[in-house]
C-alpha cells in the first residue's frame, strides 16, 4: 500500500536563484553575532487539556482518558467530518482545517500536532512532552501565518536597534506554504518592509529549529524562524 510522506523536498531561494535538494553550509567565527527569532502566529482556539501520562514522543493519556480521544475531541469540536479527517491523517488535517494543538509560551504558541495514533489509543507526537503539559487548541490560518513574520521581526527588534543586518535567513515551514496559499508571495515583502538585510535567504523547510530570544533551541514545525548574523 502506498503511503504519502508528509511533505516534499525542501527548497531554497537566494538572490534570484532557486535550489532544490541543496545543502546550505554556513561557516562563521566568534566575531559573528547571531540573533534568533521564532513565531507561529497561532491564535487561541478556546480549548485545552493536560497530558496525564507520556512515554517519549507518545501521549498515552490526557485528563485521565485515552489521549487519542481527547485530542480528537479537542481538535474536531464535535464536527464528525473534521473528526474523521483528524483520525485519518492528523497532520494533514491540521493544515486542511487551520487547527492545531500547541503549547503556550507567553503570548506565543509552539505547534504540536499529532502525527499519528497507536493501536491502544495513544497519540504519536512530533517531539517528547512531559506529563502535566497543557496543550491548547489553536487556529493557524493565512492571517496568522503573515502575523508570524511580523512577530518574528518584532523579536529581532527587541534584541537590537540596528535596521541593517548583514545576513538574515528565514526558515519557513512547508505547511505554511499550504496555509498561505496565494499569500505566500506576501511573506518576504512583509519581512523586508521591516528589515534591511544585505543578504536575505529563504529556506522552505520540513521542520524548523525554533529559538526565541536566547532560549534553548528546540524542534518545531508550522513556524517561521529568523536567524540574523552580523559582525560583532
Amino acid at each position, binding site marked *: 500500500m502506498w503511503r*504519502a510522506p508528509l511533505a516534499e523536498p525542501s527548497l531554497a531561494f537566494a538572490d534570484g536563484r532557486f535550489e532544490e535538494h541543496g545543502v546550505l553550509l554556513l561557516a562563521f567565527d566568534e566575531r559573528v553575532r547571531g540573533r534568533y527569532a521564532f513565531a507561529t502566529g497561532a491564535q487561541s482556539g478556546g480549548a485545552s487539556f493536560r497530558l496525564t501520562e507520556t512515554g517519549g514522543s507518545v501521549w498515552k493519556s490526557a485528563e485521565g482518558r485515552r489521549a487519542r480521544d481527547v485530542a480528537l475531541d479537542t481538535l474536531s469540536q464535535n464536527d464528525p467530518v473534521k473528526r474523521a479527517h483528524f483520525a485519518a491523517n492528523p497532520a494533514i488535517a491540521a493544515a486542511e482545517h487551520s487547527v492545531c494543538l500547541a503549547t503556550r509560551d507567553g503570548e506565543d504558541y509552539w505547534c504540536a500536532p499529532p502525527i499519528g495514533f497507536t493501536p491502544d489509543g495513544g497519540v504519536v507526537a512530533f517531539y517528547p512532552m512531559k506529563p502535566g503539559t497543557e496543550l491548547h487548541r489553536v487556529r493557524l490560518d493565512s492571517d496568522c501565518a503573515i502575523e508570524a513574520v511580523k512577530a518574528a521581526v518584532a523579536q529581532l527588534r527587541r534584541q537590537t536597534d540596528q535596521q541593517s543586518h548583514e545576513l538574515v535567513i528565514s526558515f519557513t515551514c*512547508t505547511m505554511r506554504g499550504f496555509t498561505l496559499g496565494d499569500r505566500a508571495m506576501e511573506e518576504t515583502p512583509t519581512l523586508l518592509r521591516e528589515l534591511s538585510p544585505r543578504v536575505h535567504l529563504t529556506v522552505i523547510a520540513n521542520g524548523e529549529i525554533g529559538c526565541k530570544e536566547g532560549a534553548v533551541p528546540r524542534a518545531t514545525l508550522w513556524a517561521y524562524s529568523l536567524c540574523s548574523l552580523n559582525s560583532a
Partner: protein
Amino acid sequence: MTVQTLVDKIAAARGPFFVARLGLRLQFLIEREANSQREEHLQAIVEVCSELGFDAAPLLRETFRPSQGF
C-alpha cells in the same frame, strides 16, 4: 487502470501533500480498493481531485480503453 495506478499518477503530477489531502476524503477507497478498476471508484477520485482544484480526468484518459467506457 486501477485505483493505485491513478493515485500514483496524481502523486507524480501534484506531489504527496496533495495525495495526502485526497486520502483524507477517500482513505477507505484508496487503501481498501487499491486494485479496483471499477468506474465509480476511479470517477470518485477524479471528482474529489476536482473539488481540490486539480483536473485528474486527463490522467484517467491517458489509459483510455473503450471497453471501460471512460
